[in-house]
């Protein structure tokens, strides 16, 4: 059965992750998402991280992150710097429920796309803007990246090893935090519109969404005047608690001992009756006061174990433990397979890409699960469907837009980013390793042999 958002139409003017990831999840759940892009200005996710690292041919239809973020959407190219392009967008707004964008307010103003402008076209429109620091205020037009807002929100400062400076995650973490909150916000607005018939303007600041998730640190400052120190993987209420080395190259296990029972379980699995007998480690307070010593002792024991086997044995004894999984472990994962977490997407034949698995959503709805996924659009794939089918433009009108390059099917100045070879990336340490038979292994594990 189709998703719960069947009948909701969203026009997305998104880039990179913050808005595209949010609208992907809404598209997954049945909303019709019309994604705008232009042939004049190629989004960087279309030019980078290419299938087989191949910059030849229509490389812009093979970008990993473009496919990751834009599943289930319809694609329309549109040059918004031109009157004809903006007219098409206005016509789309007139039949849309939601307009979602993540450009700076300056760009939105220049295009005449502020909420007040949209309301004149569609009085009950819901508009959602996602920016680094918010739609107003002195930093409103400062461009931002995920890492920048992880820094501004206060999260980066408090994260890091005990003896070092701030450490950031190696992904645009707050883009996702903002995206997740954006889904909540748009759903709240859709509910409000069901109740009242009114649309509204949603102003998502990526910084604020991230700050909302670290109240422990922010309140410790505003109430107690204390800034938390960086403590690595420690937890103030648990010991042992950390990440310990295992057998193999760069293999690790995370262990969190949250009770005396778990401590005894850990001692049993490690075969260290002497630890469980030792009064110095008998309760949580004494284990916390011997934290450094325990971490060393435990790491010395774990280093001889396979991390997945050790996890299974610890879990069987009631100890919270998890192997630190790498890309391959995460992909070829029995639990996620049984949960049907990855969804197989068949790509457009023009891409030359085989069906591939993509991460799904962190939720399941029993009665309105998603339809099987469709791939992200190749460039301009749905131009005609949308212009003719939805907006009633004639062949002649569409031809004129094509002629004037307001719409198009390939970038005007294509330039793909060829990454260094995998050998070079491994040498630099950017990649841990690579497998040459990956395509075959993906086919076998996911049963996409045909």
């Amino acid at each position, binding site marked *: 059965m189709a998703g719960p958002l069947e009948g909701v139409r969203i026009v997305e003017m998104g880039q990179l992750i913050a808005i595209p990831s949010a609208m992907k999840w809404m598209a997954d759940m049945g909303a019709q998402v019309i994604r705008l892009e232009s042939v004049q200005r190629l989004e960087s996710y279309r030019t980078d991280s290419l299938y087989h690292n191949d910059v030849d041919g229509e490389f812009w239809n093979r970008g990993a992150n473009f496919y990751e973020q834009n599943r289930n959407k319809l694609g329309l190219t549109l040059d918004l710097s031109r009157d004809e392009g903006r007219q098409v967008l206005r016509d789309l707004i007139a039949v849309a429920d939601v307009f979602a964008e993540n450009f700076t307010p300056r760009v939105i103003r220049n295009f005449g796309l502020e909420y007040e402008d949209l309301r004149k076209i569609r009085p009950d429109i819901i508009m959602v803007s996602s920016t680094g620091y918010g739609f107003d205020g002195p930093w409103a037009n400062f461009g931002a990246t995920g890492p*920048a807002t992880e*820094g501004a929100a206060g999260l980066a400062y408090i994260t890091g090893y005990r003896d070092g400076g701030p450490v950031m995650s190696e992904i645009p973490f707050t883009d996702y935090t903002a995206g997740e909150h954006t889904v909540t916000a748009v759903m709240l607005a859709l509910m409000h519109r069901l109740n009242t018939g009114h649309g509204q303007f949603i102003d998502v600041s990526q910084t604020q969404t991230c700050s909302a998730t670290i109240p422990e640190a922010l*309140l410790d400052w505003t109430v107690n005047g204390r800034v938390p120190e960086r403590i690595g993987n420690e937890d103030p209420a648990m010991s042992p608690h950390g990440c310990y080395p295992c057998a193999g190259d760069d293999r690790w296990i995370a262990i969190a001992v949250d009770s005396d029972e778990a401590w005894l379980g850990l001692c049993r699995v490690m075969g260290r009756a002497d630890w469980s007998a030792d009064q110095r480690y008998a309760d949580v307070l004494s284990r916390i006061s011997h934290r450094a010593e325990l971490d060393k002792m435990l790491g010395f024991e774990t280093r001889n174990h396979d991390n997945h086997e050790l996890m299974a044995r610890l879990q069987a004894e009631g100890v919270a433990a998890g192997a630190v999984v790498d890309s391959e*472990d995460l992909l070829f994962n029995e639990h996620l397979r049984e949960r049907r977490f990855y969804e197989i997407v068949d790509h457009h034949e023009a891409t030359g890409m085989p069906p591939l698995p993509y991460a799904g959503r962190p939720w399941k*709805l029993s009665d309105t699960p998603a339809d099987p996924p469709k791939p992200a659009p190749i460039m301009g794939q749905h131009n005609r469907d949308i212009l003719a089918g939805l907006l009633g433009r004639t062949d002649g009108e569409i031809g004129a837009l094509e002629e004037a390059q307001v719409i198009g099917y390939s970038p005007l100045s294509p330039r793909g980013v060829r990454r260094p070879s995998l050998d070079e990336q491994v040498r630099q340490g950017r990649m841990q390793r690579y497998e040459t038979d990956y395509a075959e292994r993906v086919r076998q594990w996911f049963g996409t042999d045909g």
Partner: protein
Amino acid sequence: MAGVKVVDLTHHIAGPYGTKLLADFGADVLKIERPGGDAGRRLPPFYHDEPGSEKSLPFLYLNTNKRSITLNLKSETGRAILMDLLLDADAVVENFSPRVMPSLGLDTDTLREHNPKLVVASVSNFGQSGPWRDFRATEIVEYALGGLMYIFGAYDREPLKHALHQAQFKAGTNLASATLMALYHQRLTGQGQRVDVSIHESIASALRDVTNNYTYTGAVRRRQPNHTGDLTRLRAVSDGYVLPNPGMGATLDWKVMVDFLEAPELDDERFDNASARLENAEALGDILDQIFATKQKQEIFYAAHQKRFIYGVIDSPEETVDNPQIQARDYYVPVHHPDLGEITFPGAPFLMSGSPWAVTDAAPRLGEHTGAVLGDMGYSAQDLAWLRASEVI
């Protein structure tokens, strides 16, 4: 969200954050705590460092705008009261381990039969199915098994997690979203359904360049070494840290960048194009470290944005409070607590013009509304005394 009634059985962080997002935007959230109280009441830090079930700062934050009643769900009478409450609820939300609700006779089928429009929403460590369903987990285990930890931290050290409880908060946000989707469907069709949110998948669904690096090229990504030729890595300046960003990919003009940093030593063919920078990553990294050490955080941040370089700052919690942008948006808000007085809280995660965020009520004291809620259901003062004596409430 006016008119949406949520019965909230959640505790700790993920569940309460999800229902907080609903409550702060107007839903009627009734929090049901076991007689000992939500374990989240013991989360540090505490107000003025005084431990106590009414003084946990995270608890006070996570439970704004909710009412609290205590109810012992292990007792038959407690469960009967819950079932009464569920009769006219729109959603029930829980985050027990997956075995608990069925073991209490509160399995989804029973609840949905009882009230067909009910949305039954769960958030759990690994979801309601699969071989890891009953695995034990804490925040660090979710980071490890979710795939974020392996790529997080120093190249040659142990992988790291974020400070605090990001996995829990992500899952809480996803819980709010998924519950709202089910409520949207319920408003259109009158039908409830089951919502199953996984904390583990909340991490695994929000990664870039991890599984798709493998499916697209066979590469397994790792924590990045310090010097990679990447110009956007965090750098120490004389008074803190910044995130440089001289412009992405093709838009980078090396001469402009060299002028901006006032670093003529970078005006060198070893560095003036992307492949040369990769080749000479170590040397470049060393020079950049030295240059940035002479800069000041605010000065270089504002100078960069004058040129539309999207620099970022690393601010401490203290500095976020003083940040002019955060102040201009009135992000931090005073919340009046009847016992503790005025507390400055982190405010709206996002601004909504038509149905705004607001904290009208501080987090409830344990069981603060038990008498009022059960009174409304028709229980007399004598009934309440008996329920209390029999440890139902």
